[in-house]
């Protein structure tokens, strides 16, 4: 808590601190929230710069056709021939012979394959910027930290890209539902009366219907010939269109309570219109709650997308997301033999947990009465 720690606390500091400073000071005091925030930023960083951090293209373009369903290769410093400061993996080769019944198999050799830093690769684009280097690679062939899937695609690269995609879907969904909630909740609360009754009924309906079946019904509209980008946009939109219920209800309650406050009357007397009052006076009084609610609803969006993609109604193959990664994981041979398919799961559990902890921390920090002074 740099705000209080670095200098002696004066009483004026507390009273002259801005709202944001107070919230930050309270947030920073909570260790679990700080750790979660740190992790969250780390994963957001991973997701945004996935193109550079991952050694290969996550689509079939980057596949390693000599190493399908391959086990993770963990860089090592030592092997039977001694140690080296430079991490390496062992090379693999395709082999066919008497002992394998003349079938092609992939087997490990003793040859060392050293990791390289910032290797030059085929030009690619990250966030629209043309790039020529990836963070790491090997001297010859491929390195797969998390193994490969049935098509030989690198699971590590796919996971990093999946983080980015899932966060993007969540962000778009949250933004759409946020705008809807602001409009519907604000209007319902401000006007009251029959407008409120109708909008409340609408909120109730959206809340009562089981969301995932509704998501599924909407997602089933997507024609097969749509490109993966359009699919992505549509799925994010659906998530946003159905996710505004809770925030709208909270906003409504708040606006309902605040609209009789003196400052609202004052601005009414100054001839301010309803839109102006909602935008300039009522919503700012609610900002901290809105931010908290957005952070809290984020993981639900991500999880809904994951579920949809998992059952095949959400995103599809060239686009990666956790649900897409897990699509084949229910097959028995995967369950029995290819356990590295499940490596992305704990990573996503950590991301969702990080969101939950940051949301909890923010909620406590934004509540001025949570402090025991």
């Amino acid at each position, binding site marked *: 808590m740099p705000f209080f720690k670095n200098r002696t606390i004066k009483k004026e500091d507390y009273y002259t601190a801005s709202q944001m400073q107070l919230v930050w000071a309270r947030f920073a005091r909570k260790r679990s929230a700080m750790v979660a925030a740190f992790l969250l930023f780390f994963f957001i960083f991973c997701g945004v710069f996935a193109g550079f951090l991952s050694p290969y293209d996550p689509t079939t373009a980057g596949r390693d056709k000599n190493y399908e369903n391959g086990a993770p290769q963990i860089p090592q410093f030592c092997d039977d021939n001694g140690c080296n400061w430079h991490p390496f993996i062992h090379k693999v080769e395709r082999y066919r012979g008497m002992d394998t019944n003349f079938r092609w198999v992939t087997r490990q050799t003793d040859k060392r394959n050293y990791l390289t830093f910032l290797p030059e690769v085929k030009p690619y684009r990250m966030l629209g910027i043309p790039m020529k280097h990836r963070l790491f690679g090997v001297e010859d062939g491929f390195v797969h930290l998390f193994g490969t899937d049935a098509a030989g695609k690198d699971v590590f690269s796919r996971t990093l890209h999946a983080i980015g995609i899932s966060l993007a879907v969540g962000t778009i969904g949250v933004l759409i539902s946020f705008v809807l909630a602001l409009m519907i909740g604000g209007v319902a609360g401000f006007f009251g009366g029959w407008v409120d009754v109708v909008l409340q009924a609408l909120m109730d309906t959206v809340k009562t219907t089981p969301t995932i079946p509704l998501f599924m019904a*909407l997602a089933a509209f997507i024609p097969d010939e749509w490109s993966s980008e359009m699919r992505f946009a549509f799925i994010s939109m659906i998530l946003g269109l159905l996710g505004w219920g809770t925030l709208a209800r909270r906003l409504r309650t708040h606006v309902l309570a605040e609209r009789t406050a003196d400052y609202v009357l004052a601005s009414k007397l100054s001839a301010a219109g309803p839109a102006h009052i909602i935008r300039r006076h009522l919503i700012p009084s609610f900002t901290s709650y809105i931010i908290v609610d957005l952070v809290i609803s984020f993981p639900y969006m991500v999880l809904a997308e994951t579920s949809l993609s998992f059952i095949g109604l959400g995103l599809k193959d060239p686009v990666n997301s956790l649900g897409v990664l897990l699509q084949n994981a229910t097959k028995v041979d995967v369950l029995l033999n290819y356990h590295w398919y499940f490596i992305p799961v704990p990573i996503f559990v950590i991301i969702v947990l990080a969101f939950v902890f940051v949301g909890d921390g923010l909620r406590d920090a934004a509540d001025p009465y949570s402090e025991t002074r």
Partner: protein
Amino acid sequence: MAAFIKFAGIRLSSALATMLLVSLVVFSLMELVPGNCAERYIAYKSTQGQIITQADIHAEEVRMGLDRPYLERWVKWISKAIFRLDLGESCLWRIGVNNLIGDKMAISLLLSFAALFVTYLIAVPVGIFSARVKDSLFDSGLRAFSYLGLALPNFMLALAVMLIGTIYFNDTLTGLFSEAYRNAPWSMAKFLDMMRHAWLPILILGWSATAIQLQTVRALMADEQSKLYVLAARARGLSGWSLLMRYPARHALGPVINSIGFDLNRIFNDLPIVAAVLALTDAGALLLDALAKSNDQQLAGAIILIMTAVIVALNFVTDLLLAIIDPRVRRGFF
């Protein structure tokens, strides 16, 4: 009593209004799907070697009533559903939706309500206990578990259980029936066989609901415990469990009952996905099939409508129940 009947009446009409609105939404969704039932039926016929003209399609549309205006068809659909419990005809299977989903829906509802029951069976006592030993190791452990309930969605838990099952027990633990009973007619033996397999889906369906409900119960109890009336009771010499059960637990009961409908919603949410992972043959799987593969909107709409109807009905019942058991609310009515 008259006030209570009025209250029940208002609740009932608002529940019906919600249902109508939901049915309109569901019906619109079914309508928006490109290509109607008649076209699809005719398309199927044309694969059988018949030559189909536009006139044939039109004739079939007239036969099915698809040439009527949109709202009229909605009214017909929903009134048939309400008054005759008839949910129309499946586009793909050409038989009544009722026949198609009858016992599968029953299985789904059985699983869901069992999961709901297990949720409260675990969440309420453990939550109360956790609030009693607040900030202890047990309490912190439970909190971590609850967070996991949120972060590890049910289908991933199902995957994890399958993973462990295949590695250690050599059984994927999937399906609802043994080989012998899969296509057998319903009997006591088949029911028992189902129950033997059903524990896993029930536990998995209840997983996140349990974790979240546990936290709710704990928070409610912890809130109540610091109130003045508890202090007053303590001053009168009450302590321990008897104090806890006598006042705070009864106070916390209201919000818990209120959230039953919401938890059922949560469980229904997971139904199709858990069905997909565990290879169940219930309405969840049917819904998934209708939406993802066969595009059978009539069937999907009917299943979503039934699910919502069950939730709305449960909400209505819990509202009444709350009014009856909570003296603060009850006094107004009787």
